[in-house]
C-alpha cells in the first residue's frame, strides 16, 4: 500500500506518534496535510481571487513552476487571522501570502513574518517585499436616474443628489480615510486619522450601505449584478466588472492607494521555496507581466521597463492618475488598528 509507506516514511514525528496512537485503518487513507506536502514540491500561496488570481497564475505561478519545478497551489481567502492561527497551531495552510499596508504592520509586530532578503533596493517594508500598488476607487452603476456623475467621496455620502444603495468594504482601516475625505479633510491632512470624526461621518451613510463586502470578487459581483448603485471597490475588481459589460463607471479622483507586499509565514516548513517565490514574484519581468494583466502599479522600478505604455492608463500609479490619488500611511495611523476594528464591529451592529 502506498498509503502505508507514505505514513511510515514522511510524517513529521509528532503527527506520526499521534496517528500511530490512534491508528485506525482509515487514518492513512484520510491523508493529513503534511503528507501531500512532503511528497511533492508544492508551494501554497494565499490567493486574493478574481483578477488578481488570473494574473498571478499566468505571470507568477506558471513561470515559477517552469523555472523551479515547484508547483503553486492557492488557498483563499486572504486572512490575517489565518496567518496568525497557523503560526500559533503550527499547521500551515499556506507558506506565502501578500498583505496590504494595514495588515503587514500588524503582522510583523505580532512576529508572524519571516525575515527575507530584498529583491531590489528599498523594497523591503516590515519584512514584506513590495509587489504592487492597488487602489480603492469610487464606482457606480450608469443605469441610475442621476443627473450628474459622482466625483468624490463627498458625493458617495450625498444621498440626495445620488439616491440609491451603497457598499463599502468591511474593513475600517480602508474606509475611515474615505469618510474623512467626505467630511472635507484634505488628503495631505488625513494622517494621523481622526477616528471619532470618521465614525460620526460614517453614521450618516450607514443606513444606505446595504452590503459590507468582505471579498474582492464579491464586490465585483454585487456591482455587476446591480445589487448596489455605488461602491468603494478595488480598481482591479472594478475593471473586471466593466470588462464583463456591466453598465458601470468609476473615477480615479480621491482613489486610495495601498501597497501590497509578499511575505513568508514565520517558520513555514516550506521556507526555501517560499523565499525563492517571493524573490521571483518581485523581480522585474514577472512582476511586469503580473501588473500589466491586473492593472496594478509595480513597486519594483525595474519592472517599468517591461511595461507597455498602452497598459498604463488603468494603473493607479500612471502619471496622469497618481496625482489625483492619495496613499495609505499605516505607520502614522493615529490609533490602535485592533481597537478601531473592534469599535467598527460594534458600530456595525448598533
Amino acid at each position: 500500500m502506498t498509503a502505508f509507506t507514505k505514513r511510515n516514511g514522511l510524517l513529521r514525528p509528532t503527527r506520526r506518534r499521534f496517528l500511530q496512537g490512534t491508528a485506525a485503518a482509515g487514518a492513512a487513507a484520510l491523508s493529513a496535510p503534511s503528507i501531500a506536502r512532503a511528497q511533492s514540491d508544492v508551494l501554497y500561496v494565499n490567493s486574493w481571487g478574481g483578477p488578481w488570481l488570473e494574473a498571478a497564475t499566468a505571470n507568477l505561478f506558471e513561470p515559477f513552476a517552469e523555472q523551479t519545478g515547484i508547483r503553486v497551489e492557492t488557498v483563499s481567502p486572504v486572512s490575517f487571522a489565518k496567518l496568525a492561527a497557523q503560526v500559533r497551531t503550527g499547521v500551515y495552510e499556506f507558506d506565502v501570502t501578500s498583505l496590504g499596508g494595514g495588515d503587514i504592520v500588524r503582522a510583523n509586530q505580532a512576529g508572524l513574518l519571516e525575515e527575507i532578503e530584498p529583491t531590489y533596493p528599498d523594497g523591503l517594508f516590515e519584512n514584506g517585499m513590495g509587489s504592487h500598488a492597488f487602489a480603492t476607487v469610487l464606482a457606480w452603476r450608469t443605469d441610475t436616474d442621476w443627473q450628474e456623475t459622482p466625483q468624490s467621496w463627498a458625493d458617495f455620502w450625498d444621498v440626495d443628489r445620488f439616491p440609491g444603495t451603497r457598499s463599502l468594504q468591511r474593513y475600517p482601516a480602508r474606509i475611515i480615510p474615505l469618510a474623512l475625505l467626505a467630511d472635507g479633510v484634505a488628503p495631505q491632512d488625513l494622517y494621523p486619522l481622526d477616528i471619532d470624526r470618521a465614525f460620526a461621518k460614517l453614521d450618516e451613510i450607514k443606513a444606505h450601505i446595504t452590503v459590507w463586502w468582505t471579498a474582492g470578487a464579491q464586490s465585483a459581483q454585487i456591482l455587476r449584478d446591480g445589487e448596489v448603485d455605488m461602491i468603494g471597490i478595488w480598481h482591479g475588481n472594478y475593471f473586471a466588472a466593466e470588462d464583463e459589460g456591466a453598465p458601470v463607471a468609476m473615477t480615479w479622483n480621491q482613489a486610495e492607494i495601498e501597497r501590497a507586499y509578499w511575505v513568508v509565514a514565520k517558520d513555514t516548513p516550506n521556507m526555501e521555496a517560499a523565499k525563492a517565490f517571493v524573490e521571483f514574484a518581485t523581480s522585474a519581468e514577472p512582476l511586469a507581466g503580473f501588473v500589466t494583466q491586473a492593472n496594478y502599479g509595480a513597486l519594483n522600478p525595474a519592472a517599468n521597463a517591461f511595461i507597455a505604455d498602452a497598459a498604463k492608463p488603468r494603473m493607479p500609479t500612471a502619471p496622469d492618475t497618481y496625482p489625483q490619488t492619495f496613499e495609505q500611511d499605516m505607520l502614522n495611523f493615529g490609533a490602535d488598528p485592533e481597537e478601531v476594528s473592534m469599535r467598527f464591529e460594534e458600530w456595525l451592529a448598533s
Partner: protein
Amino acid sequence: MNASLRLIGIFAIVFIAAPLLIVVPMSLSTSASLQFPPPGLWLGYYASYFTDMSWLRPTWNSLVIAFFTTLLTMALVVPATFALVRHRFYGKSVANLMMLMPLAVPHIVMAVGYYSYFGDLRLVFSKTGVVLAHTCLSVPITFLVLSANLKGFDRNLERAARSLGATPRQVFVHITLPILRPSLTISALFAFIQSFDETVVALFISGRDAETLPRKMFDSIRQEADPVIAVISTLLFLIVALALLAPHAMRLTRRMLATASRRTTPRDQT
C-alpha cells in the same frame, strides 16, 4: 375559516417548493449573474463543474469524509444503542442524555472547540479531524433513529429462536440483524447526510486539504456567487428528489403494469 386556512396552506406549499425549484433554471442560465428570467439556456456551467478540480476535489473530500464518518458512527452507536435499549443498569439515563448532548450544543460552539483542540493535536485542516468531529455530531441522530426501531423490535422472535436451540450469536446473525437491516441502513444514511451537509465545523477545521463541498459552497457564495453553485444545488436537490420519488415511481409503474397485464390477459389472474 376553513377556506382561508386552505388558502394559507396552498401558499405555504408554494413557499416551500419555490426555492427548491428555482435553482434548476438558474443552473441552465447563460448569465454569470443571478438574473431572472435567464437570458439564455445552456449546459456550460455543468461542464465547468465536472471539469473543475476546485469543485470536484471538495466533492470527493466530502464523500470520503461522510463515508468514514458513517463507518465510525455506526461502529460506536450500534453497540451503545443495544446497551441502552435492551439493558437496565445504573446511570442509564445519564448515558441516554450523553448520547443526545451533541444535538444540544450549537455547532458554532463545537467549531470553536475543535479549532483550538485539533490545533493542539495537529489534526486541524485534516480529513481525519473532520471525520472525528462529524462522528460526534452524527451520534445523536443515528442513536435516535436506531433506538426508535430497536424499541419496536419484537423480542419474541429472538426468544423463539433461543428456545429452538440457537446460540446468542446465531440469533443475532440470523434473526436480529436481518430484521434490523432497514433501520440500520436508514440510520447510516442519516449519519452520512449529516456529515455531507455539515458546514459550520467544516468551515473552521477543514482547511486546504480537507475542504468539504459545503465549505467550498459557503466560500463561493460569500465571495463571488460563482454560477457553478446553481449547478451543484440542482444536482444535490435532484439526488434528494430522485431518492425520495424513486420508490413511489416504482410502485406506480408496478401498479400500472399490473393493471395493464390484467387487462390484456384477464384469465391468467385468479
